[in-house]
């Protein structure tokens, strides 16, 4: 493999600037350096990436429970009040016959947040154990995570739009429920967790063993 021949940039004292992507030659691991081009602080890896990623992930995991149990939307109609959680919203769409839409909402609001949390757990645990298992697949997983991150915001926007539109005093009105708060928190926290994680740490375990 070509990778083994050349090795990581960090091993050669070359650090990528987080601010402007310039490859900088650093005299030694000790000391703090600044990028010659943009003057941002240079770091070999994102500083404290694992601690921060774990912290955000655990917070997301905790918020995930109320996000799914509490109602995200309350519909008041002449016929009575109806409370919707994320899952019951999907079920309602499915039963009313809009299957493609039910599928989209199910993927964006149920599947994606859950898979995001599980994948982040997998990445963090394997990096912590300095695992050499499937680094290429794990990097790909990380890339996917970053890409789908914002799409779980879908339900928050939908609730917001419904709340703003359906305000027909006596006929029907929709209010956002406490579940929406928790769900929004899950989306933001998992995004932060993924941003803090440094995929290069996946490969560092392999590099160190080669030495």
């Amino acid at each position, binding site marked *: 493999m070509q990778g083994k021949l050349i090795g990581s940039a960090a091993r050669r004292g070359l650090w990528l600037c987080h601010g402007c992507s310039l490859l900088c030659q650093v005299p030694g691991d000790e000391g703090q350096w600044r990028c010659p081009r943009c003057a941002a*602080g240079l770091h070999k890896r994102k500083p404290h990436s694992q601690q921060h990623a774990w912290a955000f992930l655990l917070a997301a995991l905790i918020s995930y429970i109320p996000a799914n149990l509490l109602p995200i939307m309350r519909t008041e109609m002449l016929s009575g009040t109806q409370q919707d959680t994320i899952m019951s919203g999907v079920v309602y769409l499915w039963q009313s016959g*809009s299957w493609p839409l039910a599928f989209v909402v199910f993927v964006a609001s149920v599947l994606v947040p859950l898979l995001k949390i599980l994948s982040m757990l997998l990445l963090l645990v394997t990096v912590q154990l300095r695992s050499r298992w499937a680094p290429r697949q794990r990097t790909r997983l990380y*890339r996917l995570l970053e890409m789908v991150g914002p799409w779980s915001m879908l339900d928050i926007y939908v609730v917001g739009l419904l*709340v703003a539109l359906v*305000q027909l005093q006596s006929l029907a009105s929709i209010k956002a429920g406490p579940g929406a708060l928790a769900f*929004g928190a899950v989306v933001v926290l998992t995004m932060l967790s993924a941003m803090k994680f440094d995929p290069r740490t996946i490969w560092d375990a392999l590099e160190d063993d080669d030495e």
Partner: protein
Amino acid sequence: MSDMSSRLENRSWQHPVVLACHECDLLQTRPDNARKDMQCCRCGSRLPCQGPDQLKPSLALLLASLLVFVLANVFPVVQLEAGGTRLDTTLLGTAWQLSQQGMLPIAAVIVLTGCLLPGLELTCMLYLLLPLMLGRVPAGFARIIRTLRLLHPWGMMEVFLLAALVALVKLAHLADVHAGIGLWSFFALILLLSGNASCFDTNLLWERQQACKAN
């Protein structure tokens, strides 16, 4: 600048053919016949590459985006008619209604991700690009480029577009709903922005900046 850190002087590795992967840190050489999209040979991620200079189309797309951005936020996205009353909403109206119901954090997230941060990103890009095209380096160049990088993941206008479509379908059996000018503007905006994403290149901006400084 803290006194503990020292700025490196001209020790940067500006070798034109050597680059490091952003995702696995592998040091590799750029092939002579480098195409527009290169992949890291170890982890398969996209490598930053020297494409053709497309800053001019980027400027045009940015100016158009800014115009459409205003339209998208001023005109209603979805309109609803029921029982003789007519209701419509924009992204900001949505956030306003939520904040009235005591859902201030959610309202803040919607305003930030749907309007404020993408808007700021657009303005930052224009602020960098316009003076550079005229041969001047804008003040705070490095800081703005760093801000751009922070802002980028939080722009979620395409998610809002999908959400508006979902809301339209959900409401279709309750009342008479129409897509407003805002929705079409969002659609156009996303096309313009993805066009811009393939032209706008911070590496090229840095090269321009260095060239302007040298003159």
